[in-house]
């Protein structure tokens, strides 16, 4: 299974109506592309440049590739996000961009109204030996799950950011290693609970666990329909 995120920062002056329009286009994606599953959007509540978060998944790389060539992708989604599209409403570079991970099952699922915290992580400086980085990530996943549970989290998943540089077909890497090596997803019952307890696994916790750098997104998972 492929877990995938895209985040967007809007161009200055983008009207509210157009912000909502992009969220609607992304949130309705699964109606037209059945391969897009666990589809939802959310408005980021942190000071990261990313404003709109689109979260979804695919059963396989084959399913992902069908999404990539679907007319809805080219006609509707790219209409608002591709750099040279006349109706583009988002910054082409700013924000966390595209990231995700491969996983055996959909243990990340939350219901609409629940809240998600996504933390993009870097454990070592660029060029660090991969086995060492993965070792740190495994240790982190255990500590993060335990700490999250104690803080009221209802789910915790850590994945290697395998999708940032395999975005074309879900399998073949291209370009340099991604800026963020790992992704940590947490779920809470609602945004208020996340805001109240999320800080217990915030910067101090992350640095204690050997995280060198991170950025964080927090949002309520919205009903796509």
């Amino acid at each position, binding site marked *: 299974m492929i877990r995938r995120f895209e985040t967007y920062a809007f161009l200055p002056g983008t009207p509210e109506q157009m912000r909502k329009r992009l969220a609607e286009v992304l949130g309705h994606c699964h109606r037209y592309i059945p391969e897009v599953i666990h589809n939802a959007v959310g408005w980021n509540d942190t000071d990261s440049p990313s404003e709109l978060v689109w979260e979804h998944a695919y059963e396989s790389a084959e399913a992902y590739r069908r999404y990539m*060539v*679907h007319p809805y992708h*080219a*006609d509707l989604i*790219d209409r608002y996000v*591709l*750099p*040279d599209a*006349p*109706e583009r409403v988002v910054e082409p570079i700013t924000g966390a961009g595209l990231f995700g991970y491969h996983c055996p099952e959909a243990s990340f699922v939350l219901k609409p109204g629940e809240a998600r915290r996504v933390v993009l992580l870097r454990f070592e400086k660029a060029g660090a030996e991969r086995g060492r980085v993965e070792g740190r990530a495994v240790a982190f996943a255990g500590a993060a799950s335990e700490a999250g549970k104690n803080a009221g989290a209802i789910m915790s998943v850590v994945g290697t950011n395998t999708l940032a540089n395999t975005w074309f077909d879900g399998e073949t890497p291209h370009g340099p290693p991604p800026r963020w090596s790992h992704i940590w997803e947490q779920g809470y019952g609602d945004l208020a609970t996340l805001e109240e307890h999320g800080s217990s696994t915030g910067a101090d916790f992350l640095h204690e666990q050997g995280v060198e750098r991170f950025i964080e997104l927090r949002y309520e998972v919205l009903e796509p329909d």
Partner: protein
Amino acid sequence: MATPGSSCDAQAVARPGLHLVDTVVVEPDQLDGYLEVLRSQAIPLYQGAGATLEYLRTSDADVGEPVEVQLAWSVADNARWNEIRRTLVLDPLYYESAVALASLRLGGTRRFHRDTQIETTATP
């Protein structure tokens, strides 16, 4: 450079399949600049990525209203467009071209058209 109000047909050919049609509006005094960015940056990028130029057309620039510029590309299908799109987004010049075009236009649309067949009966 193309002359406003005429078409740029150099190497232009209509092919069956998927047609990417950008229709934008520019102020008359920005038209030459817009066409120059298309000529020197955007069109070579798209051609280099594998798209086929169908046409470049403009409305009249001397009738006291913004000028419409329509640029159409053809590609075989959505799978081919996906490959072209990948080539474009991995090229830093694509972003430079996009910023330059955006700074010169008032607005516009991009639509993907598909060939459609209907039977017609000639009337005497």
